């Protein structure tokens, strides 16, 4: 409930944010291709008095994408456009500079002003002022990072989205939701039995997951706002691997009603059971294409676990086409948001790594080289992949850019972390960016 109120409040406060100064978005991309955009982020005035530095969060967000190069400020701290000596920033190689100020108001809220300036044109690209409750500073920082990201890359910012994951502490398993950088984590449910495979509904209001509280895997759907939950697949045998259809009406699930693990379709309320595919072996880990017309999934029908694609409607419905051919273990496929590629886990010798494969050209790219990578999940803009990995026996979350260039661990969580899932970009988040 707290989360829900928080986000409602956020949406409201965003609407109320005044004086969104937004210059034309004719800045194309600073340095295309693999070249990084050099940005200087000057700490906002009086930030040191706040419980939380805004610019530190903005910098970390932008750096995690691998698309930006942070330019040092060398002790120069302009807070207003008039303070900027553009020639200095130009000589340091900065294409854009972020300046701003914060003022702690008597009621405890914070007045935040921010501007993104074009160094070459010596003009403002975008900016805003807003009043934020002091416990919403992280949220405000992620909005600022989104605005900068969108202005400089022309792509959607995803820093204001949320992620879900499972944290194991001692014998306790908690399904948690956090900001996209791993901070602000809180449990939506806790058990003494394992929880796996959390999956966000497309509208971000519900999470489906598998719980072992009944001594066997059962699929639940939980509404985040009310914490109300319902067992939607509790058939004889095992129930697992829930995947939402893009419109949120249905779930693909894996059941063992007839022996082996097979993929079925149910309505989101658990009704209307329908078998989707039939194979003599294991079929599991279904994931819908963004257009909802097909699924990709893991199957060992060919002797080893590989990834297959199958149309679920039309003339070719039920006919599976094998997609992976390199190696003897390719699992956990997830479509990219544009449907043109998919990420998965590829076993490479004794290592399990994140791979990316184009659907048209079939080219495989290994994005990581660590030992135990699991559960890849695309950011809603397709530019980053969140995954679980291990450092000295402890599970942690990491993010890799889709070009494999930048990897960064999300280091805020404690305990043994696994099963990450990147939440959707909500419409409210998307529309509120450039209010004039």
């Amino acid at each position, binding site marked *: 409930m707290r989360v829900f109120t928080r986000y409602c409040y956020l949406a409201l406060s965003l609407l109320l944010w005044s004086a969104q100064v937004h210059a034309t978005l004719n800045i194309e991309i600073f340095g295309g291709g693999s070249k990084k955009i050099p940005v200087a982020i000057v700490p906002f005035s009086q930030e040191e008095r706040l419980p939380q530095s805004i610019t530190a969060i903005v910098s970390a967000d932008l750096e995690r994408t691998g698309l930006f190069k942070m330019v040092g400020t060398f002790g120069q701290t302009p807070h207003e456009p008039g303070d900027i000596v553009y020639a200095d920033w130009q000589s340091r190689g900065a294409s854009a500079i972020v300046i701003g100020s914060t003022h702690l108001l008597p009621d405890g809220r914070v007045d935040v002003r921010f501007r993104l300036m074009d160094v070459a044109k010596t003009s403002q690209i975008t900016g805003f002022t807003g009043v934020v409750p002091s416990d919403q500073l992280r949220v405000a920082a992620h909005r600022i990072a989104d605005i900068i990201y969108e202005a400089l890359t022309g792509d959607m910012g995803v820093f204001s989205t949320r992620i879900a994951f499972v944290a194991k502490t001692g014998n306790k398993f908690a399904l948690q939701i956090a900001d996209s950088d791993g901070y602000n984590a809180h449990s939506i449910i806790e058990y003494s039995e394992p929880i*796996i495979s959390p999956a966000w509904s497309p509208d971000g209001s519900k999470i489906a997951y598998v719980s072992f509280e009944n*001594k066997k895997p059962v699929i639940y759907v939980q509404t985040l706002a009310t914490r109300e939950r319902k067992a939607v697949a509790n058939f*004889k*045998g095992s129930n697992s691997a829930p995947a939402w259809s893009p419109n949120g009406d249905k779930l693909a699930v894996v059941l*063992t009603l007839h022996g082996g693990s097979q993929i079925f379709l149910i309505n989101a309320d658990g009704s209307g059971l329908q078998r989707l595919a039939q194979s003599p072996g294991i079929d*599991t*880990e279904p994931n819908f294409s963004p257009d909802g017309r097909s699924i990709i999934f893991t199957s060992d029908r060919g002797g080893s676990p590989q990834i297959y694609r199958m149309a679920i409607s039309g003339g070719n419905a039920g006919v599976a086409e094998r997609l992976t051919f390199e190696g003897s273990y390719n699992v956990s496929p997830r479509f990219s948001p544009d449907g043109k590629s998919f990420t998965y*886990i590829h076993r490479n010798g004794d290592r399990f790594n994140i791979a990316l494969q184009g659907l048209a050209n079939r080219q495989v790219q290994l994005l990581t080289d660590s030992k135990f990578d699991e559960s890849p999940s695309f950011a809603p803009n397709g530019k980053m992949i969140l995954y679980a990995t291990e450092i000295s026996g402890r599970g942690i979350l990491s993010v890799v850019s889709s070009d494999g260039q930048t990897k960064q661990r999300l280091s805020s969580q404690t305990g043994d972390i696994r099963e990450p899932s990147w939440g959707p970009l909500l419409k409210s988040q998307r529309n509120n960016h450039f209010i004039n």
Partner: protein
Amino acid sequence: MKKLLTVLIICLLSACASQNKQSAEVDDRAMAGGGSGSQDGAGAGGFGLSPLRDPNNILSQRSVYYDYDSYTIKSEYRELVLAHARYLRDNGDAKVLLQGNTDDRGSREYNLALGQKRANSVKNAMLLSGARDQQIEAVSLGEEKPRATGHGESAWAENRRTDILYQGEY
């Protein structure tokens, strides 16, 4: 030798743990179950001890272990599975939950499916030996409930198994 000892200790510990869990609430039911068992005489150990709990009875053995990436029941476990199948055949009210398990390498969901194959292999063997479908539920815990923790062959081997649990034991 050390490995064997570890396995033994773990077995003992888990036996203790499950017994502790049951002793408080489940004794009545266990007695009732034992009563019906001795009535038809099937596999009854006598002396009031349920054959399922009698350490001298093969029915007290509840775990089937597998080789890596395999779900074939090894010959050394055939007798055990057969004994449970006969018990189910002779005790029509008895029900079991078969929980398949895997080591922790690779995808959790794929391991869940592998564990299901292991549980199914025991279920199918039991069905062939006279147990009925309604008596058996085969499920998987995948890599989620490891009996041994850590990476390494001894832990992995311990976790590649199917456990046989009778009603009242889970």
